[in-house]
């Protein structure tokens, strides 16, 4: 915060207002749109021909789509971590990170919901979930909690954006007529009066209190989709906590990556400072250690017992077909980032960015490992099934849809950045004025001569 206290309000506003895409921005956006297009094409093919275009079968009935769904849900949890938990615990340095976390949450939860529809194969049957759904089923709980989290995250993003949009309207921020209308519809009523401030502040606090348990529920319920079934690797009472801790870690990793990119691309060094990376580094190390602890409980303890029913599954992970991916996920997703970030030099922006990328990539593979190997090792013997059901490797359509969905997440974030400030201007100015006021008060105190 100290970095921008000497800047004028105008300079801060200019720095933080959305900027037009440059050449790199256009290439980036076009690339993402192409990937989305390929994903869309693959999805249309899947709609026409059915789930037969995937390589899923009787055993691996949840493949890469559900791995991706779990990944998106995990990343989306970060909105509650950075915005709600930081706000409720009075973390002062959170301002430049909150909106990044919120848009990451909204974009990921949107595609988490969409990918479930993709996995269903017949999207027109979605309403069956409601008119035939049983409240006893964790799948229905997941539908309820994802819908709730989506709306709460979107609302949180909106309510914190209101003063910024109002500022953009007052500055006649040029974005085109159609968008100006949308801005006006969203926030023209904001005058910044004391009454409005009070109501908004109270609403955000209530929202933060509400969103934390919902966020915990969303990933706990997702873990219960697995843990409430009796299968090797899923039959665990540890699963809720294991999923939530993993989600916080990957979310923190995603925020670190986004922080670095925004800082570099939009030259926001004064706002997203080395100190922010240092502090996020400490939090991420803590989360990585916590997740590592749950991993020890999830894998080493069952491996120590090596029950017959779980033997094939565990051997497959620890030194079999999936061992390369498993150890990659453990080393790259937890151990190496811990070793990088535990030292002060490792908490500088670049090493943090590298560690963040490692965490996010490994987290995706970790979700794949949670879903697939277990499905290949059912308790009931495999009976009269084709040989191909014993293995699973996603088809090109599955890869295209998955990559397309990831591109979709990034596209939402990219377009959001184009039309809205990625760091809250209103809050930054408020922070600046608070510091200035504090400094003035200190100076006044210091200038008083004690006789």
């Amino acid at each position, binding site marked *: 915060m100290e970095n921008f206290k000497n800047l004028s309000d105008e300079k801060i506003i200019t720095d933080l207002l959305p900027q037009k895409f440059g050449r790199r921005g256009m290439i980036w956006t076009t690339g993402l749109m192409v990937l989305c297009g390929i994903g869309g094409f693959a999805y249309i093919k899947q709609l026409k021909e059915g789930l037969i275009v995937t390589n899923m079968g009787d055993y691996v009935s949840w493949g890469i789509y559900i791995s991706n769904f779990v990944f998106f849900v995990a990343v989306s949890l970060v909105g509650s971590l950075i915005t709600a938990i930081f706000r409720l615990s009075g973390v002062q340095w959170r301002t430049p990170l909150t909106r990044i976390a919120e848009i990451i949450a909204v974009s990921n939860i949107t595609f988490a919901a969409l990918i479930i529809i993709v996995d269903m194969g017949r999207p027109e049957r979605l309403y069956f979930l409601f008119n035939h759904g049983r*409240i006893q089923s964790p799948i229905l709980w997941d539908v309820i909690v994802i819908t709730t989290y989506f*709306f*709460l995250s979107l609302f949180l993003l909106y309510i914190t954006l209101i003063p910024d949009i109002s500022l953009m309207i007052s500055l006649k921020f040029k974005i085109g007529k159609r968008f100006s209308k949308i801005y006006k519809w969203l926030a023209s009523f*904001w005058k910044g*009066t004391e009454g409005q401030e009070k109501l908004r502040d109270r609403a955000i606090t*209530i929202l933060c209190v*509400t969103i934390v348990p919902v966020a915990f529920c969303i990933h706990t319920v997702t873990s219960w989709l697995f843990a409430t079934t009796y299968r090797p690797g899923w039959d665990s009472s540890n699963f809720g906590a294991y999923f939530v801790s993993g989600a916080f870690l990957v979310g923190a990793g995603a925020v670190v990556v986004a922080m670095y990119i925004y800082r570099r691309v939009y030259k926001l060094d004064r706002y997203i400072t080395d100190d922010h990376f240092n502090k996020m580094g400490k939090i991420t190390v803590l989360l990585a250690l916590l997740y590592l602890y749950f991993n020890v409980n999830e894998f080493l303890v069952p491996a120590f017992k090596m029950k017959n029913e779980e033997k094939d599954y565990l051997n497959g992970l620890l030194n079999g077909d999936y061992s390369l991916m498993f150890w990659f996920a453990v080393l790259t997703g937890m151990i190496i980032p811990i070793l990088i970030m535990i030292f002060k030099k490792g908490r500088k922006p670049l090493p943090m960015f590298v560690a963040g990328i490692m965490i996010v990539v490994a987290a995706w593979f970790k979700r794949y490992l949670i879903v697939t190997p277990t499905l290949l090792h059912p308790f009931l013997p495999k009976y009269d099934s084709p040989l191909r059901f014993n293995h699973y490797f996603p088809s090109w359509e599955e890869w295209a849809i998955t990559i397309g969905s990831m591109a979709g997440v990034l596209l939402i974030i990219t377009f959001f950045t184009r039309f809205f400030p990625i760091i809250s201007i209103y809050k930054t100015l408020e922070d600046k004025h608070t510091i200035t006021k504090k400094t003035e008060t200190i100076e006044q105190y210091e200038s008083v001569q004690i006789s």
Partner: protein
Amino acid sequence: MKAFKYHKLSIILLLLFGPWISKINAQDSVASKTQLSISYFLPVNNLPYLEVNTRKKNGRKFEAVTNIPVNIYFDQAERKNLLGQVTTDSTGKGRIGLPASFKNEWDSLNEFKFIAEESSPQGEALSADITIKKAILTIDTTSADGTRMVTAELKEKNGDNWIPVKDIDMVLSIKRLLGNLSVGDKETYTSDSTGVSRAEFKRDSIPGDQKGNIILVAQIVDNDNYGNLAVEKLVNWGTPVKPPKNFFAQRALWSIRTETPFWLLFTVYSIVLGIWGTFIYLIFQVRKIKKLGA
């Protein structure tokens, strides 16, 4: 020295047989040529079919060889005798039903030779044949003095007559969900001079369907002369298994949607109403903010 004496025998044995053992292992580790085989099946539905199998020995295990096109002929490998072509699937197997055009031969002959030949000119020129005698397998049950017997009879066609076949191993079993369970203690039962094999039914308390029905199965498996034959019979020898009364009508986790336990309904609805109630309240707060700015 004492240790040497103790292990002397092992060392001598190792020197003697070591090279031979290593040779066996070396042979095992080399993949052999593809093998083609053909089998005849007369399943329960009485529609006979032929199955070809292509596999290869790799080490000590057989591996399926896939995508091998195979022509199947009757009697001689000539174009006019072609019954059809199959391509082996991922399990190395391919199946073909006997075509309707084969009916005349089927009705007039008692013995059939089927030839399988790899049809791809680039292949290994694999071939196999099988000669099958026309036979019929029947299954029956008897019950006397509290002893229940399962009998199966095999007859082969000789001229215009069906004559019993002795000394044939038959599997007499009960159909279960994931496989068959022998009706008695033995795995197979051999037919006597009347062509009948008998087994005492010793699974008195075996669970059947809701009426106590079970399916008895008689099989001849991979016989050189008759191939694979199977026949079934439904009998009321099992214990009726009825789902508990009102099993799905009670309020339980496994019940239908209208029978959700009250505690679960209460928990879910309180959470949903609590959270969505708060959300709606917050939307009203935004409306208030809006009014203040109007």
